């Protein structure tokens, strides 16, 4: 039982720390031209915060039945899967691959000149063909800055929702497992 508690503790710690550092280094899943520092710092902070909150509430968690804790943990994993799939779907919708060049990051909705030109040319691909990848990048930055910021916030929210439930799921099991350890005789 002790080894199981250690396993859950280590797993929770790993999910609290590793994704943030991995994001900082590899920029995986971070939208193009967005700050990987921002994404990693948010994940790191929320991961540690989740662990701290679990630890603070360990008394209440340990009083809960094993069934309840298991359900909460499974709920966390389901949340993780839903967030992961949503993020992948949204990421693929927002990021337009440009052959042999850097991908372009479009906002959830277009504003101003970008909106007009998208209506004119019909598709993002056609817009890139007509204006060129770099000019469209400028067009997005210039005319849809507000929409782009909100899109980044939505992505950031979903991104942290991938890792926080994982930390939560393993963390809550770790806290519960510590309680279940056989007490040594004095």
């Amino acid at each position, binding site marked *: 039982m002790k080894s199981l508690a250690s396993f859950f503790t280590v797993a929770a710690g790993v999910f609290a720390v590793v994704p943030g550092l991995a994001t900082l280094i590899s920029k995986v899943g971070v939208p193009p031209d967005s700050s990987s520092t921002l994404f990693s710092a948010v994940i790191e902070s929320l991961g540690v915060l989740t662990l701290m909150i679990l630890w603070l509430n360990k008394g209440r968690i340990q009083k809960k039945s094993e069934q309840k804790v298991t359900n909460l943990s499974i709920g966390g994993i389901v949340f993780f899967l839903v967030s992961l799939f949503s993020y992948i779907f949204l990421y693929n919708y927002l990021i337009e691959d440009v052959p042999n*060049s850097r991908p372009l990051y479009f906002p959830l909705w277009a504003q101003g000149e970008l909106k007009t030109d998208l209506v004119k040319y019909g598709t993002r691909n056609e817009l890139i063909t*007509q204006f060129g990848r*770099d000019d469209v990048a400028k067009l997005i930055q*210039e*005319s849809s800055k507000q929409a782009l910021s909100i899109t980044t916030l939505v992505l950031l929210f979903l991104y942290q929702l991938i890792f926080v439930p994982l930390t939560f799921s393993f963390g809550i099991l770790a806290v519960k497992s*510590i309680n279940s350890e056989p007490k040594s005789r004095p």
Partner: protein
Amino acid sequence: MRKGRIKILLFAIFHLTLMASVFGQSENDEFNAIQKGNSGWLSFEKAEYDNCITLSKNALKIDSSLSYIRFNIALCYLMKGQNEYSISEYENAINAAKRFGIPQEDFQGTIDDLLKYAGSPSLQSIVTRIINEIKIAAKEYSVSNNVFLHVPIVVDSVNVKEYSLLKLKREINSIKISITNSAGGVIWTSDRISSIEPDSLAYFFRMSVPEIIMKKKANIKCHYFYNSLEKGPGSAAAMENHYWDEKKDANYSSIKLNLISSPKGASVFLIPNRIWQKQYENKDWQTQIKSMDRFRVDGSTTNTIANIDETVYVIIFQLNTTNKKRTYFTKAALVQPEQTVTMNFNE
């Protein structure tokens, strides 16, 4: 239980320290290096050459890209009479300047320092030799390429509403571009560019950048100049404001575009397709060539080169009174870093 709490606390402290060191390190380094370099120069002015060398070397340990500090070290050795060592340090400094970049005026500053502090007749031959080498390095900065860029239109921080109530108006007059290295040090600054094209929310312009600077990975800073506030026509209030805006990770135009015509000698205009469609398409563009001057590839006629990014351009070739145009769908830099557009006037 207490042990567990301590472990969690230590874990959190370690974690926060790690993150703070990762995020805060580079900015502190840059500041400390410049500060140490400045302290070194103060020591030099007090003739404390050994102290200057120590401080300068410490600065370079923090940020080795600060080329001007190497020139200070070399000057210290010269002042100490270690001439051969000084020459070798100057050579190192010139190589570092080529590698990391240096503002062109710093070359002149180095020459001025040599003439000011090492002007004694006994050092004349060495100083002349060093100055010649610096001048050769500086010459590389005179080979320029045309670059076409966009910078964002920034919000005027002056309270425009208040001025408009007083019937005052001010407009952007020119911009100045500074190229900075990864540590934020300025390695090159353009002259004021007044021929700028407002393009919805950005300014489009052309500038000449030394070839040696273009080879470096760097960021671009834009300095916006506004004209004096004018109250009605004519009278100008003595007021001018400057703005800085940093475009991080903005690389130079990375595609070398060869512009060739037969016969040679044609002027070339590079107009982004987006601007073309909004301003010139469906109009008699042949009569509007004068208004396109800001898009001209300056300094030369065909055959010439320009540096562009992955933007689609409408290219106009003008030879005597004949104008010909073609739309050029720029290929990705990764596929073809050097591309060629030809125009045959004989057809």
